[in-house]
């Protein structure tokens, strides 16, 4: 059974159709990349999969581990193993990073019927992941993402992912706004997470990230549809030629919009 199976997915935001029929199958152990021009629906797909209510699924089906993902609330999807690394991580003043992450971990453990982790057991694990992402321990007690630099926020996302160990990690433009050093660190964190049980969906505008995270499949999203799929070489082609040609091609072959 595939980990994620998306069939003819349509989604709207505020009445506008953004996703116009997505088909995508992801198996455990695979890394898929979604590329596409601005406004093609990349982030919408990421948000729909993490069940943000702002995005309404109007048709199609998404099965995650064989279960109906569309019927799930965000917290249920998360507990089932879907993780979204946000394009713009949210600052939450007044809630400490470590406390927040332990609460998240315990919510998931509770969902799975496992014992909660106390602070004594949590901190060593947390410290280890901080080291992996080359983050300052002082960040532990600071409020979630508050006053973090862009790079620190992105690293914090990957750190959360490393602690929560999802089945499907969705990285939404994790590379955007990162300098090359930060990108290298983030990629190191992501690569450390690769495993035969885990799949990744890397959403990116640029091919650059894929130099650091080896991808198995590349899908090009244009105007809410996947117009082309291929291997890593497709990403290189896009980098070289831009999105113009593929958009033009898509316009010719796409059915007239309704």
């Amino acid at each position, binding site marked *: 059974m595939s980990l994620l199976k998306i069939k003819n997915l349509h989604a709207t935001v505020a009445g506008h159709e953004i996703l116009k029929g997505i088909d995508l199958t992801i198996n455990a152990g695979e890394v898929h990349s979604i590329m596409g021009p601005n406004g093609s629906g990349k982030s919408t797909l990421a948000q729909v999969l993490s069940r943000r209510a702002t995005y309404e699924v109007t048709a199609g089906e998404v099965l995650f581990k064989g279960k109906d993902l569309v019927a799930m609330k965000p*917290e249920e999807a998360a507990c089932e193993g879907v993780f979204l690394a946000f394009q713009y991580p949210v600052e939450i003043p*007044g809630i400490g990073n470590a406390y927040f992450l332990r609460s998240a971990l315990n919510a998931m453990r509770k969902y799975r019927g496992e014992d909660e982790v106390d602070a004594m057991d949590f901190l060593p694990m947390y410290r280890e992941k901080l080291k992996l992402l080359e983050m300052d321990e002082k960040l532990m007690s600071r409020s979630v993402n508050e006053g973090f630099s862009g790079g620190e926020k992105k690293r914090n996302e990957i750190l959360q992912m490393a602690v929560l160990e999802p089945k499907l990690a969705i990285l939404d433009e994790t590379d955007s706004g990162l300098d090359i050093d930060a990108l290298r660190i983030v990629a190191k964190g992501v690569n450390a997470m690769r495993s035969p049980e885990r799949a990744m969906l890397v959403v990116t505008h640029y091919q650059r990230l894929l130099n650091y995270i080896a991808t198995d499949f590349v899908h090009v999203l244009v105007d809410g549809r996947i117009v082309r799929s291929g291997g890593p070489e497709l990403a290189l082609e896009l980098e070289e030629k831009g999105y113009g040609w593929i958009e033009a091609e898509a316009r010719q072959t796409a059915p007239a919009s309704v």
Partner: protein
Amino acid sequence: MITATENLEKYLESFTAFAKRSSGHGRPWLRKLRDDAFARFCETGFPTTHDEDWRFTSVSAIARTAFSFGQPAARLSNSDLKPWRVEGAAAQLVFVDGEFVRGLSIFGTLPAGIAVSSLKEEIEKRTPSLEAHLGRYLNTQRDAFCALNTAFAEDGAFVHFGRGLSLDAPIHLLFVSTAADAPRMIHPRNLLIFEQESEATVIEDYVSLGGGTVLCNSATELIAGPSSTIAHYMVERESLDAFNISTLRMQQERSANVASHSLLLGGGLVRNNVHPVLGGEGGECLINGIFVGDDHQHLDNYMHVEHASPHCSSRQFYNGILDGHAHGVFHGRIVVHKDAQKTDAKQTNRNLLLSDDAQIDTKPQLEIYADDVKCTHGATIGQIEENALFYLRSRGIDEISARKFLLQAFASECLERMKPGVARTHAEHLIHEHLLSIANHFSAPRPSPATGPRQRA
């Protein structure tokens, strides 16, 4: 005033009966204090919303109600009080329906020089500090409720810390109001005197046993001597039937450092007056508060910070959380007198509105008569941010817990300004319990716009 005369005869009757049997009636200074205050109350009557200080709060429900004074107090047992005891307090004074109950109070062993008792007992003992302080600070001319309280001033807490004495543990003053046959009014009067270099924490805690219409009109005069460090907590958690008007008048002498923390969680109609006067150089005053309203609660915070000496600083931080049809008010008045140069006054009021029907009125009012001062003010009104809520939920935290997290985060700004210790732990516990019940309201889905409106004044 139409509103005042409605029940004026009733007040007159209550006052006449009270005056005759009251402690200290034979002492001319005290008698004059009460008589003058009552006369002033008769003159002014209750304020109306035409009065600028009461623009957002109508007390017509109070004016209309025929409250009676001096009905017998309920007899409570120790087990009745159990839910409200504060563990780790140095002393706990218990007042039931305005009357001090020695049998239910806990005194512990206090160092010599620290007196904790009831005002009535001190009046009867003719304690000299009473005449010097009682009624000296409170403004009965301007405020009808202060006048009314002074007219009926007899029982309440008396706390006196001698020079250089300090206690880490708080003094807990518990005021329990119970239902009576007819609407009851009580006028607790507290006198808290802290001499030079003393350090103390006092918690005034107002609770209800059962519902019933009660007007609790308290007034506290707090004298912070030179270089004293004082923390005062006001906790309002009465039933939704209760009217609670409280006035905290703080007199700060040279280099005194005073923190006032208010937690308004209960009460139907609540007016929280905080009035510090920085009367000596180098004084510091922190006015910190959180008000959490739900249902049809009306929670009004009236701050009147008076800088009367140079080189003093004041900080006001009030956070409001309003749900249901609750109405919150924050009125932050700062008065800088002519000689109070180098005043540094800051005021911030932040509000979260959780429902479409909740309302907040926030109003800064700066009156500056000195020319070398720093005064700032700001207010924000927002909603729980959908972004933050989704972020928490995307990490596996359920919606109710996520809302509680965000409410707690908002409240924690206020909690963090309290010095760690017994009083803060008490406050944290109360806030957390209360916010959990508010967060639980959110089981039903409700639309929330992606970006909350934010206003800056």
